[in-house]
């Protein structure tokens, strides 16, 4: 279902079917993909879209630490393991009490999601060429997904504070900078807050 939505939104934002399919196959990380498509669709520059996608993808590097500990991929498996390191597979792997179960959960979740995401993208992109994104309310999909991904972070005070400052900064910048730049500015807010405020050990684990 998310794949369908992404495919439809991508072609609705002016991308081709092949561009949507390449993104899902190679990037395979939902938030970055929706951000890139959303910023391009809003008339943002490709550079702003690229920067936002990369900055959002940084969290996957940190998921690599617990995943490597659980999956223990051999040298040759590392590139494939890396491809599947996303929010959902990491959450499923770390939720298991036994290491073998965590490893199984990682691969099972990864294979299922990768198949569904790519099949959905292709289908959504092909169907999406003929549909009216606005009439179907599909422009609400991006913000709804971002909000849902954001929700767990709002449970922590540090997450709430940084989200509030980011919201204010983004809102103030809208009339003055090109589309996509408020999102990049919010990344600077997070990095600044990360350096300026004391760290607690639980922050990076979602």
């Amino acid at each position: 279902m998310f794949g369908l939505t992404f495919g439809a939104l991508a072609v609705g934002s002016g991308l081709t079917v092949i561009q949507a399919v390449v993104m899902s196959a190679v990037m395979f990380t939902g938030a970055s993909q929706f951000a890139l498509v959303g910023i391009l669709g809003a008339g943002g520059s490709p550079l702003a879209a690229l920067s936002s996608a990369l900055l959002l993808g940084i969290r996957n590097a940190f998921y690599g630490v617990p995943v490597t500990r659980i999956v223990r991929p051999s040298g040759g498996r590392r590139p494939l393991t890396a491809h599947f390191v996303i929010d959902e597979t990491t959450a499923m792997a770390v939720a298991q009490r036994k290491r073998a179960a965590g490893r199984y959960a990682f691969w099972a979740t990864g294979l299922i999601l990768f198949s569904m995401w790519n099949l959905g993208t292709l289908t959504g992109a092909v169907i999406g060429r003929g549909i009216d994104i606005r009439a179907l309310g599909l422009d609400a999909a991006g913000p709804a997904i971002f909000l849902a991904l954001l929700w767990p972070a709002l449970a922590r005070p540090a997450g709430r504070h940084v989200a509030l400052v980011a919201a204010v900064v983004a809102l103030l910048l809208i009339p003055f900078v090109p589309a996509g730049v408020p999102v990049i500015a919010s990344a600077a807010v997070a990095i600044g807050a990360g350096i300026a405020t004391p760290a607690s050990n639980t922050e990076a684990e979602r």
Partner: protein
Amino acid sequence: MSTVWTAILAASIGCYGLKLAGVSLPDFLLNHPVVQHAAGLLPAAMLTALVITDLFDANGRYGADLPLLAGVAAGALALRLGGSLPIVLLVAVAVTAAIRSIA
């Protein structure tokens, strides 16, 4: 090659590179407390900014589309009530579409 293609390929390969770095780099680089703290705050800030600009940026001016606002607010309510991601997505899209079809 168009700049859009360049951005797509660079973002795709870059995002994969970040994942590969995560499973390949030695632990101590990524386990640094300040690095972890800043990286932990990054998604919260960026996702918030994405929601804000999706809702209130009308081509570089302040603007809001009421059906869209209502739909996303309904999605937030669904989240508040413990709805899962697919439910939240469905609620937001359906409410937006329903209000537009009436208005």
